[in-house]
């Protein structure tokens, strides 16, 4: 019953809050992935590499601007833009010609992009660790229920819902979002009524890449920015997307919550095998709901 004692200890709450701030990153990255998968039907394995590119770009922007809060906030805008521009080139250069290929081919094509981007990052930034210090504004921690929670984690907790609402507005309240949703269901019909579906797809892909870059920039102060940070994340993001329902933004949010919380609580309950809990959660969810928790777009 040791694990039960662990679970009700005071550490649980702080573990939950840390898990929730990690959930924010997972949500931002996997919402981009689910958008691309839902609308363009591309299982984008390179999404994790774009996230890594975002983190490295944020490092460069911050060190070029000399650090501080303004440099950090600038990096949160510029790094995702760099990644989005990169995504635009990928979409126009390759994917726009290959939409009718089967999933397996697209999966392997994006895997090959992941390999290429991984080595390009190695060529540009070298293979050493990079790190970004948390800006002074976010240093220190708040006392919540008598537990210290770093300000930066609180910032992440605030930004998650903000992104979710923003995405909901883009998808449901803008013309572009409505067209993208229609194209997800029947791209041929959308083009038949005179809409250039190619540009809608490009917009969606670039938005997804922007989110991947934003996730990378946000995680930058919390971890060592290193090669290989793409591999662990992309698998988690894919499982979240499948668990939540393909193409469903709220599904991505729900999936991220489940994944982030089982991850942080799992390690608390059973330190040695804690890392298996999120995978177990995915298996259980897919066993009972084969198409994911919420309805997929296709």
């Amino acid at each position: 019953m040791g694990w039960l004692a662990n679970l009700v200890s005071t550490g649980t709450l702080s573990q939950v809050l840390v898990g929730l701030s990690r959930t924010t990153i997972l949500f931002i990255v996997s919402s981009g992935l689910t958008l691309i998968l839902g609308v363009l039907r591309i299982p984008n394995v390179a999404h994790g590499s774009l996230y890594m590119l975002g983190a490295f770009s944020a490092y460069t922007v911050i060190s070029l601007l000399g650090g501080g809060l303004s440099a950090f906030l600038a990096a949160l805008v510029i790094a995702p833009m760099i990644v989005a521009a990169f995504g635009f080139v990928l979409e126009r250069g390759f994917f726009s010609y290959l939409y009718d290929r089967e999933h397996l081919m697209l999966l392997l094509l994006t895997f090959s992009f992941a390999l290429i981007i991984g080595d390009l990052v190695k060529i540009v930034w070298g293979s050493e660790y990079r790190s970004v210090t948390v800006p002074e504004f976010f240093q220190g921690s708040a006392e919540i229920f008598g537990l210290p929670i770093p300000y930066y984690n609180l910032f992440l907790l605030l930004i998650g819902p903000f992104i979710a609402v923003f995405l909901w507005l883009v998808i449901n309240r803008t013309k572009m979002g409505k067209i993208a949703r229609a194209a997800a269901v029947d791209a041929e019909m959308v083009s038949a009524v005179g809409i250039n579906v190619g540009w809608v797809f490009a917009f969606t892909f670039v938005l997804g890449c922007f989110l991947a870059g934003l996730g990378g920039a946000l995680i930058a102060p919390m971890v060592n920015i290193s090669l290989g940070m793409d591999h662990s994340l992309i698998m988690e993001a894919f499982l979240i997307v499948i668990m939540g329902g393909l193409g469903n933004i709220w599904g991505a949010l729900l999936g991220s919550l489940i994944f982030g919380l089982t991850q942080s609580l799992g390690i608390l309950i059973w330190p040695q095998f804690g890392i298996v809990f999120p995978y177990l959660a995915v298996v259980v969810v897919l066993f009972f709901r084969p198409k994911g928790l919420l309805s997929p777009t296709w």
Partner: protein
Amino acid sequence: MKKTHVAFFLLLAALCSLPLFLPRFYTYIAAIVLLTALLATSLNLAIGYGGIYQFHHAVFYGIGAYGTALMLTRTPMPAALGLLVGPLASALLSLVMGVICIRLSKLYFGMLQISLGSLVWATVYRWYSFTGGDDGIHGIPLPDRIATPDGAYYYTLAVTALCFFAMHRIVGSPFGKALQGIRDNPVRSSAIGVHVKAHQLVALVIAGFFGGVAGSLFVVVNNSVFPDMMFWTFSLEVLIMCLLGGMYTFFGPLAGASILVLLRVFVSVYTQYWSLLLGAILTLVIIFLPDGVLGYAVRRFRPVEGRRA
């Protein structure tokens, strides 16, 4: 067909004579090529012939290797039994995972399999007291006859040849034909009375078993096992081998595996940017040769009436 048989035996004879003139290191590489070819061909049974999205095949390779390694290091059983237990464990795992995943199709199947496979990987990776955790197991004791590099090579060659023969028979059997029918049109196959899911499940178990055999061969050749063997990136690499050689040909994955393993050995001498090259090759193959190198050769050089689907 006769010509293929002659070519096959010529290839076998050439492979038999390799250790006579190759240095030790290249004999080792040749053995790795053989067992990787076996691994890729076993995956092709599921994905090329069965049309099942087997995304995490490396798990069966890894379990075959770990099963064998654990039997050899932790039990006093004869080595032959250990070499058999590994592949059987893979087949069993394949059955269990297959029963769970088979209800789903295509992308969902693949992702659930990756999830289950990651579960297995994470367990092996963390269970230090039993599997050695991320260090793996090293210095696995082997019988004297297959402990030398030449012995290991000939053992690998014999087993691989036997497995290729068996898989070729399976693909050509009524079961194999039914499987290909399911791949091309599951609805029609089911309408004429073929039990779709049962056929696919059997195909998964067979693929898992031969993947496990490749894993047990890895133990013989490399004398060690480590959890990276069953990480999902390796599964995608094996998929690349199938794609590169050609998924709809029997010997395509063999060609793909040989190209990739040899290329990696020779290119790594000159550059550390192997992934960049691999990614570039893969991109070109997907865009220009979607049916693979061997598939392209078959299409290009066979007269029209001799073509097979």
